[in-house]
């Protein structure tokens, strides 16, 4: 089953057709990329998928559930789709551990009264949530920074934490919005390993938007190319690299001699 299936989606802002009749799929535990020149509509499509915008036509299914009429938090909860942001959005004033614990809210089994009275059920549940969060951090080697405030982490770790935080919501599909933005080559290489690891360890589908071609070609199993709101190509990285339509979209047409 496809964890993400975008079916003939279009969106119009006034007279501008930002995304036109786009269809794409992500299979379970597949690594898919979405590339395109600036203004191609990648982020718009992302925002439609995650419920920030409402499409004017078409349908989005995440995990077999239509996102029709759902708000972003319902999409995360019911459809099991989690995202990261282009400009990192952590809970800056919370510790690294708390960032994960807040996102593990699906694990909360206690009610408010047992919280106030710190019943046994509450304490056990909280301990279990904390352990799960710590295990996740350990897996990504962030556990020794568990008590640091998120805003004090170095840039690379903030990116990492954002991805781990998304995983804490127990998604079936992860949307990464320009994860390599602002990273140097070394950090990008590490990120590539990280995303791979996420896919391998958690068996979740991942859809990535990114400008860094080297990163995308090295990471993705399949790449969709968007230009002027339309899909112009889809295929394996080596196919995309050679595709004349894609080259034209990025570099423009060769002038006639």
């Amino acid at each position, binding site marked *: 089953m496809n964890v993400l299936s975008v079916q003939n989606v279009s969106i119009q802002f006034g007279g501008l057709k930002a995304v036109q009749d786009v269809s794409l799929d992500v299979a379970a535990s597949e690594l898919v990329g979405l590339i395109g020149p600036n203004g191609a509509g990648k982020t718009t499509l992302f925002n439609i998928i*995650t419920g920030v915008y409402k499409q004017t036509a078409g349908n989005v299914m995440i995990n077999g559930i239509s996102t029709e009429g759902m*708000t*972003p*938090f*319902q999409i*995360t*909860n019911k459809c099991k789709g*989690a*995202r990261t*942001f282009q400009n990192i*959005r*952590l*809970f*800056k*004033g*919370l510790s690294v551990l*708390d960032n994960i*614990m*807040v*996102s*593990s*809210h*699906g694990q*909360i089994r*206690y009610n*408010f009264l047992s*919280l*106030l*009275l*710190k*019943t*046994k059920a*509450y*304490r056990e549940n*909280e301990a279990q*949530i*904390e352990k799960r969060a710590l295990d996740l951090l350990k897996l990504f080697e962030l556990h020794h920074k568990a008590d640091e405030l998120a805003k004090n982490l170095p840039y690379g770790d903030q990116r990492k934490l954002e991805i781990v*935080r*998304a995983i804490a*919501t127990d998604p079936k599909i992860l949307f990464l919005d320009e994860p390599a933005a602002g990273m140097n080559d070394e950090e990008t290489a590490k990120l590539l390993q990280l995303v791979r690891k996420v896919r391998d360890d958690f068996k979740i589908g991942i859809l990535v938007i990114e400008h860094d071609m080297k990163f995308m070609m090295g990471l993705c199993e399949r790449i969709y190319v968007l230009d002027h709101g339309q899909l112009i190509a889809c295929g394996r990285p080596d196919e995309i690299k050679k595709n004349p339509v894609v080259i034209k979209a990025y570099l423009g047409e060769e002038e006639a001699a």
Partner: protein
Amino acid sequence: MRGFITPIATIVVSALVGMLLMNTLGLYQQTVLAFVGINVILAVSLNLVNGFTGQFSMGHVGFMAVGAYLSAWLSTVILPQFAIWNEMMAMPVVGQFLFFGLVIAGGLVAAGIGILVGIPSLRLKGDYLAIVTLGFGEIIRIFILNVEQVGGARGLIGIPSMGRLPWILGCAALTCVFCYRIVRSSMGKQFMAVRDDETATLSMGLSTTHIKVRSFAIASFFAGVAGVLFAHETQYLNPGTFTFNYSFQIIAMIVLGGLGSLTGSVVAASLLTFSLEFLRILQDLLGVDLRMIIYALILIIIMLTRPDGLFGQKELWTIWKRKVRA
């Protein structure tokens, strides 16, 4: 059982201290202490909304008015009509249980109104939310002003003296314990997540509206409790008490103590309430009323030297620990 020990011990200790103080201090000192306790409840609970959840509410005292008037109306106007209430009130221990009922009722109704007010207004952000909550606070006050059954503008007199210092100190301590437990739980940390980044909170599958309303309702509950205690301490209620001036004072306390620091709120609420009273002595000496000027100066100086408030977002013991380690 471990979870019950702290609250129960807190109530018992503060109630005993309260009783002791009632027998040793003069009436004036008792009243000052009572106001300290009430202001601590108000400040700590408002900090939950303004500090921890990052939603600037300016109508906190409105919910206090709800608790105060509801309980006073019950204990002064409605319940004395029933013989059984009067009989039970005459009994020594039973009266305390009846007061407990009033405290809970006042808190719950205030929380209910808090939810009603919160659902539409918490969709707004920043300045707009502040204005709307200010407006709602005033609506509550003006509503009460026009209810003849609770005295309207003349105020409500003859409220029975109940609770007093043991209850006020007990409730203040309990408010601190509960609020501390809330902000330390992973459920309570959702409040801070909303404060730090609403978009990210939403994308983590959390309803920000739900979280904000919850925080607002909890704060309103404690404000209502403070109102019940206030009504039965002063034994007289006047809508003029619950103007936005009082809300501003509470806001001054939490800003001074540090938005996001519970102990900061406790310290600042005590400090400001006490200092207003100490300044009275100065007024007697000088013969001119410089109280509000000095009060304002204190605020200005502290905000200039410590813009994040006394404790910032930290609690007293974390600052202490760091000092010791260093």
